[in-house]
Structure formats: structure tokens, C-alpha cells
């Protein structure tokens, strides 16, 4: 390759957004290279473990026949922990046992991403691992390439797709985003704990390749604005916690200690007992949502995935699917730009339109108030679980007291501890935030 050689498109980062973009571009005959700072694709990539696959299945139909996915999720469980109790909503259905398996899978990202990158490589994408893009090359306000470390080499292209992930240094360099806000950035830690498949199936009441996904609020994260999770892999479980950095620092919490408290909670401990920790990981999640999105494009640059803040931080916890969708839209946009021979912000802004008209931004818009609501009403997550468990505990306590009297007492307590008005207000507010 000569020094003057130039790629049509450079993609920064071999995660779901970057690989989706590169795969789609290569299929459209665009010359594309992916620069990945990990020694191999997946080396730096972490998520809780649920991958929604509506986009993946479009890119690679029936991917589950080859991809290293763990289990398809047939059981979803949402619960609130008090200090020693739990109130849960548990849902399961056999309907999710048929292809496409409700597009919901547990995965281990380092394994999955490596495989996903191999599919792109097979389609003609050049993947360069072990190279960190330290900065974008900008000439006359236009992005014209990247500079890499180690070595300081420069590489040029018509357009760069940044899929560099949550820290999004490149977007900051060119002024597409403001400094990150600790209220809108969550830190999450997780452990992968090995357990025999049969033990997992017994503990979660699943069989075969079925999987279970638990989202746990309240004391799971010491009442902070965040949640804990437990997901079943084939022969391990992924367990973790995440909360906004603002809340964690406000309560002087250490993420690992929060995770340990979660693991020790009587409702969780039986799930992990006897397991063997295989790996510990930490990662951030951009939770600013719709109201805190960066500018998505400029001349010669498109932001995708976490770097563009595309995470639905509601109870759906959907990030990678949005990342893949954004990668796909970025690729379509670049194909069009290449056809026109114009990589200006005006042409690339098609990308923003595509996002607007898809589930990506429509979902983010729908949940835009959730983050603000919980930031403004921390008591909802801190106090309600305790009160609920206490009331239910009173209600179910067996004694010779007439049941009618117990009911009355519970209702009286309920009134005094939460207040009908407050609860109604909160439910209303949460409902509005989700609308």
C-alpha cells in the first residue's frame, strides 16, 4: 500500500455499531477499514449481556445458527429489592421458543464481537486491531482521516464513522458534544460466574436453550438511580450493577462493593452460590437519552452507537441493537454520499433523518423524561421498595388477628408512610415520563 492510498471510509471501533456499518459498506462495494484499539475485536467490549437482534437478523439472517450466542430469553423478571425482601413481576412464555426467538439473546460480548468482526472480514472489510485512533485529522473544518497510536501514523479517507464507544473522545475533539455529565453517565460492573448448565436451568426454572433476564431495582443498587441484573448464559451467569456516576459518588459508593451487596442479598445469593467467578468487568453507559444527544454529523464524520449516546436506558436497557441500527444507517448514508461524491454535513445529515424515522430516536423520545424523573425524585427508588415489602409483610403475616383488621391496619400504614396522594403523583409522573 502506498502512502497516498486512501480508504473510502474508516470506521473507528469494532463493536456492534462499527462492524454493522463496515459489513454493510463492504457489501455495497465501499472500501472500508475498521481500526480497533483492542488486540482483537471484543477485547474492550462489555455489556450486561442482553442483545436485541432485530437488526442483526437483517444483516445476518438466522445468525443464531453460527453466532456464539448463549441463550434466547423466554423469561423476564423485574423486581424491587428492599433490605431483605423482594417484590417481583415475573413473566415467561413458550411463544419465545420459536425463531426468531423474540430477538432477545444473552451474549458474552468479547466472544460475540470477535465472531461478528470475522463475518465482516469475510465480506471484505479490513480490520486492523491493536490500533487506537488518538485524534481525527481535520482540514478546513472537515474530517479527512485519523491519527493512530502507537506509531503516530495517519490514514486518510473520504469519511470517518466513529463507533468508538461511550467515552467518545473524538466527538469531543471536534466539538460535537459537551463534556459528559455524571448525572447522565452510569458506571456498571459485572461478573461472569460459571455454574453448570443444569444448575442454572434449575435455579431459573428454564430448560434447553431458554434463558432468563432479571432486572432488579431499589436496594439492588443501594437505592441509587440504577439497577442490578442477572442474565443466564449457557454455563455461566452475568451479574452486575450500574448506577449514575453522580449518584454513586453522592453516596460515596464503590461499584464493586455495591455489586457485592447485591450478590449477598437473600433474594440473589442463592442464584450465585457455589459458582466460580470467571471475569470481572467495568464499563460506562451513556444514559442522557434523547435530551442529551450530541450533534450526529459534520463534514466527513458520522457518530454511531454509544459514541452518539444511542442507549435506551429505560427498563429495556437497549444499546447494542440501537448501535447496530445506527451503523446500518450510517453505512446507507455513506453509500449515498459516495454516489453523490459529497461527504459534507448536509449530505451526511440524511443519517440523522434515518434515525429520526426509525425506532432508534422514536424510542429514545418516548423515554426522554425517565432519567430526569428519577434524578429529581430519588425517593422513588430508595423508599418505595422498603415500604412495599414492609406492608406486604404485614399483610401476609399469619396471626389470629381477623383479616379485615389486618387489611385496615395495612391501609392505614400505607396512607401514613407514603400518602395516597404522593403515590398517585409518582405513578402519574413515571407514567408520563414513559409516554
Amino acid at each position, binding site marked *: 500500500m502506498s502512502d497516498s492510498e486512501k480508504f473510502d471510509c474508516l470506521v473507528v471501533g469494532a463493536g456492534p455499531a462499527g462492524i454493522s456499518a463496515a459489513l454493510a459498506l463492504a457489501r455495497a462495494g465501499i472500501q472500508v477499514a475498521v481500526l480497533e484499539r483492542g488486540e482483537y475485536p471484543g477485547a474492550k467490549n462489555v455489556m450486561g449481556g442482553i442483545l436485541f437482534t432485530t437488526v442483526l437478523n437483517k444483516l445476518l439472517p438466522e445468525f443464531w445458527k453460527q453466532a456464539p450466542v448463549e441463550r434466547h430469553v423466554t423469561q423476564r423478571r423485574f423486581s424491587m429489592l428492599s433490605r431483605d425482601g423482594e417484590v417481583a413481576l415475573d413473566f415467561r412464555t413458550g411463544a419465545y421458543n420459536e425463531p426468531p426467538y423474540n430477538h432477545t439473546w444473552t451474549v458474552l460480548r468479547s466472544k460475540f464481537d470477535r465472531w461478528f468482526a470475522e463475518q465482516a472480514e469475510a465480506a471484505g472489510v479490513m480490520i486492523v486491531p491493536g490500533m487506537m485512533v488518538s485524534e481525527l485529522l481535520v482540514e478546513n473544518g472537515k474530517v479527512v482521516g485519523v491519527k493512530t497510536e502507537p506509531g503516530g501514523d495517519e490514514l486518510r479517507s473520504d469519511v470517518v464513522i466513529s463507533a468508538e464507544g461511550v*467515552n467518545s473522545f473524538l466527538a469531543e475533539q471536534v466539538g460535537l458534544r459537551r463534556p459528559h455529565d455524571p448525572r447522565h453517565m452510569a458506571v456498571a460492573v459485572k461478573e461472569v460466574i460459571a455454574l453448570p448448565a443444569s444448575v442454572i436451568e434449575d435455579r431459573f426454572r428454564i430448560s434447553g436453550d431458554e434463558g432468563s433476564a432479571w432486572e432488579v431495582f431499589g436496594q439492588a443498587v443501594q437505592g441509587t438511580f440504577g439497577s442490578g441484573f442477572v442474565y443466564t448464559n449457557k454455563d455461566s451467569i452475568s451479574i452486575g450493577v450500574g448506577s449514575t456516576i453522580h449518584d454513586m459518588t453522592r453516596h460515596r459508593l464503590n461499584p464493586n462493593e455495591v455489586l457485592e451487596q447485591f450478590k449477598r442479598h437473600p433474594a440473589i445469593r442463592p442464584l450465585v452460590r457455589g459458582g466460580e*467467578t*470467571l471475569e470481572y468487568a467495568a464499563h460506562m453507559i451513556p444514559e442522557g437519552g434523547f435530551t442529551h444527544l450530541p450533534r450526529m454529523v459534520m463534514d466527513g464524520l458520522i457518530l454511531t452507537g454509544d459514541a452518539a449516546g444511542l442507549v435506551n436506558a429505560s427498563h429495556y436497557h437497549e444499546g447494542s441493537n440501537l448501535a447496530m441500527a445506527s451503523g446500518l444507517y450510517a453505512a446507507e448514508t455513506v453509500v449515498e454520499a459516495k454516489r453523490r461524491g459529497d461527504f459534507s454535513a448536509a449530505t451526511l445529515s440524511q443519517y440523522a433523518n434515518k434515525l429520526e424515522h426509525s425506532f432508534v430516536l422514536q424510542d429514545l423520545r418516548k423515554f426522554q423524561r425517565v432519567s430526569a424523573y428519577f434524578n429529581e425524585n430519588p425517593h422513588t427508588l430508595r423508599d418505595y421498595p422498603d415500604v412495599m415489602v414492609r406492608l406486604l409483610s404485614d399483610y401476609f403475616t399469619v396471626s389470629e388477628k381477623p383479616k379485615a383488621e389486618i387489611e385496615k391496619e395495612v391501609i392505614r400504614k400505607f396512607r401514613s408512610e407514603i400518602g395516597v396522594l404522593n403515590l398517585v403523583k409518582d405513578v402519574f409522573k413515571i407514567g408520563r415520563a414513559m409516554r
Partner: protein
Amino acid sequence: MSEPVAPADDKLKETIEDKLYLVKYKPDKQSHIEVIQEVFKADKLKVVLYICPAKVYTLNEETGECLVNHENCLECGTCAIAAPEYVKWRYPRGGFGVQYKLG
């Protein structure tokens, strides 16, 4: 011939140290983290000492300075958002740093 049996061990890890021991790294000799010690010393909250999930930051009690074990870094970036006044955190150079096997 006996069946291979994996060595027995205390298996469910609790402390950060034990957990980091399971994580694979390719440490770079040059650090990707810089702490502005004067600002750190003046800061009462010292959030990096506890918010970091990998115990990268510890306090040198004699000098009051912040010791940085950049080799432990899990590269989440939390420190730079929690304490931007004194933590200058970038990615390690390509190929170096944490290497998740499972992720």
C-alpha cells in the same frame, strides 16, 4: 490415566484484588492516566479513591499524593467523569490494556 481435574480454589470472588487477578491485561509501560497532584491534594472529596471499580487510585498517606496503578485500569472512563478537575484519562495505546475474554 486419571481424568483431568481442574485445581480446586476459592471460586466466587469478592474483593477487587481477587477479581482483577482474573482479568487479563497487556500492561503498557507508559501510563495512560495523569493526576494533577496539586488539585487532588486540595480536593476534599477525593472521589477517585472509591468510585474507580478497579482500585487504580490509592492515597499515599505520607505525601498526600495520589498513586496511580494504571496497570489495573479496566478502561471504563468513570474517573475522568467523576473527577475531571484532576484526572486526565485517555485510552491506553492500541493493543495495550485490558483484554476481556468474555466481556
